[in-house]
């Protein structure tokens, strides 16, 4: 494996004033991730700037430190996968599974996200400023996801916990087989999935939605949203429900 590129070797020089710079056109994703996983990564540089991602996969996965990573361009699959604590911003579009299984921290996509954004994520905040494709928040387990635009079909499928906020429209089968995740939708929904129903928007929901929108930096009125959740009729199998699936 090649040594780290010149920009990383100059980390100390820019420590306080400039983020550590990594150019993926001259070094490998493996080298970037290894540097970001280093035990002393915070001491080396609290801020990192990644250039030329060019759709590469697995950028900034498995982070476990209070660092900020900014990526200038489009990323491939699983960017910021299993993120803990770190703050990752993609100045571009994200491929499949951005922030999948995130535990904590913040991941922000300035552009659009491909399918399975925030899949199975347990915590933290995922913001997609553009639109997210199918299965956004699939099997979400506690993450908060705020999407500025639309989401594709089967979003929040089997969502167990957490909140999915959609400022635009939702595709087919929203919230199919939902457990306890909550969905807030401003636009229209093409169809609701099995066991997903519209629920009353009470004061506590307006309050938590307001907090989520503020945290995501979205300028939207919580009162313009509707809330969806599980009817909980499919929690235990009954032969009478066989046609619901």
């Amino acid at each position, binding site marked *: 494996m090649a040594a780290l590129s010149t920009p990383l070797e100059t980390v100390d020089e820019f420590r306080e004033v400039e983020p550590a710079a990594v150019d993926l056109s001259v070094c490998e994703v493996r080298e970037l991730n290894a540097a970001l996983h280093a035990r002393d990564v915070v001491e080396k540089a609290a801020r990192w700037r990644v250039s030329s991602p060019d759709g590469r996969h697995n950028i900034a996965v498995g982070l476990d430190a209070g660092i900020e990573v900014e990526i200038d361009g489009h990323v491939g699959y699983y960017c910021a996968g299993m993120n803990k604590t770190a703050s990752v911003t993609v100045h571009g579009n994200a491929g499949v599974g951005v922030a999948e*299984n995130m535990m904590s921290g913040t991941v922000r996509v300035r552009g659009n996200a491909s399918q399975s954004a925030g899949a199975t994520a347990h915590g933290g905040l995922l913001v997609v400023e553009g639109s997210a494709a199918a299965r956004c928040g699939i099997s979400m387990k506690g993450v908060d996801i705020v999407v500025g635009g639309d989401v594709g079909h089967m979003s929040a499928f089997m969502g167990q916990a957490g909140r999915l906020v959609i400022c635009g429209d939702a595709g087919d089968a929203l919230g199919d087989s939902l457990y306890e995740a909550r969905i807030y939708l401003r636009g229209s929904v093409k169809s609701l999935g099995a066991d997903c129903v519209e629920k009353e928007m009470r004061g506590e929901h307006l309050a938590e939605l307001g907090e989520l929108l503020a945290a995501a930096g979205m300028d939207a009125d919580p009162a313009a949203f509707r809330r969806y959740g599980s009817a909980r009729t499919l*929690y235990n199998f009954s032969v009478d429900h066989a046609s619901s699936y």
Partner: protein
Amino acid sequence: MNPALPPDPTLRESATFDRATIADIQRAAETGIYDIRGGGAKRRVPHFDDLLFLGASMSRYPLEGYRERCDTDVVLGDRNATYPLHLSTPVTIAGMSFGALSGRAKEALGRGASEVNTSTTTGDGGMTAEERGQSKHLVYQYLPSRYGMNPDDLRQADAIEVVLGQGAKPGGGGMLLGQKITERVAGMRTLPMGVDQRSACRHPDWTGPDDLEIKIRELREITDWEKPIYVKIGASRTYYDVKLAAKAGADVIVLDGMQGGTAATQDVFIEHVGIPTLAALPQAVQALQEEGLHRQVQLVVSGGIRNGADLAKCMALGADAVAIGTAALIALGDNSPSLDAEYRELGSAAGFYDDWQAGRDPAGITTQDDELAQRLDPVLGGRRLANFIRVMTMEAQIIARACGKAHLHHLEPEDLVALTIEAAAMARVPLAGTSWIPGQGL
């Protein structure tokens, strides 16, 4: 009187509508629901009992049984990982979840495996502290549900097993019925207590082998290329599945045949989907050989592995290791004759109990009931399991020495013959007493 026989010899039982079939129809008509149970396929399928070893005589040179070495160690996952697993025996413990099994049962599996320096495996629902603490080598399953999946446990695992399916139900997801979703199980899986937990059959963020390659690299990146990555498949289109898994970058392929157990699956699924372990294993070996990856990508075989003979036959057909699940539970105390009266109270009997989904296991293994779980002593259970694995290993050594092999991995298909044409065709070894391998000409 033998209860299997009709009371009157003039009565003739239908082979098509036998008593079990009649009872199934009657039960379905009465309840309106299919049967769910634990365990693997119960039907008779061609299996390792249909193979025999050719011991050495004039043309082969045996090893002295109690004097000469026959090694049993195996290294799993040395293709890419910094820290592959070095095991003393090729008998490993298959993935079984905390949730399906009690915490004490999982601890017992870890204790037993560690005593003989082999690996044990988590299941759907995450890693428990008891299991991690007692397991020298712990394989962490990465399942479609991702229940309890987190990067900390990923990093403290010794290997990662991406599960695509299991032999009892290739194409099916997980199931854990509400009676076993206790507060602790629910908490680990982020689910409401008491729900019927049906986990997904497909991974949520990848489809197909091209995506799997990227997913495997993600797992390597997260763990800094330290851990072996396994891929587990249920036996169905094994030749193609193994080729694709190996090309996607798997370090180890776990192949589970239809006799492999499940905690809870529909009986119709268990009995009618997937192929026998014996039929799948040679396909997997062929696929790896054609890719030039046999012995580089290790092959772990499971599904009905019961003794040292099965182990030796898997080795001879080209496996690197085996995994036991049902046999391990029996070693812990499942289906013990001492519990026969309690099994009968549940409508079953010792030797027949398969309601592992129900959570009322008198042996305290497949339950989340604290009182029942207390019945299993994890230290004693671990010792029983270690004993069983030692016996399996020694039995395989006895066979290997008789075939003149100084390591279990030196066993080869040439050491085997088949008792039936079906087994000969599946295992691709000659029918005993002939040189005929069906499908390969004379």
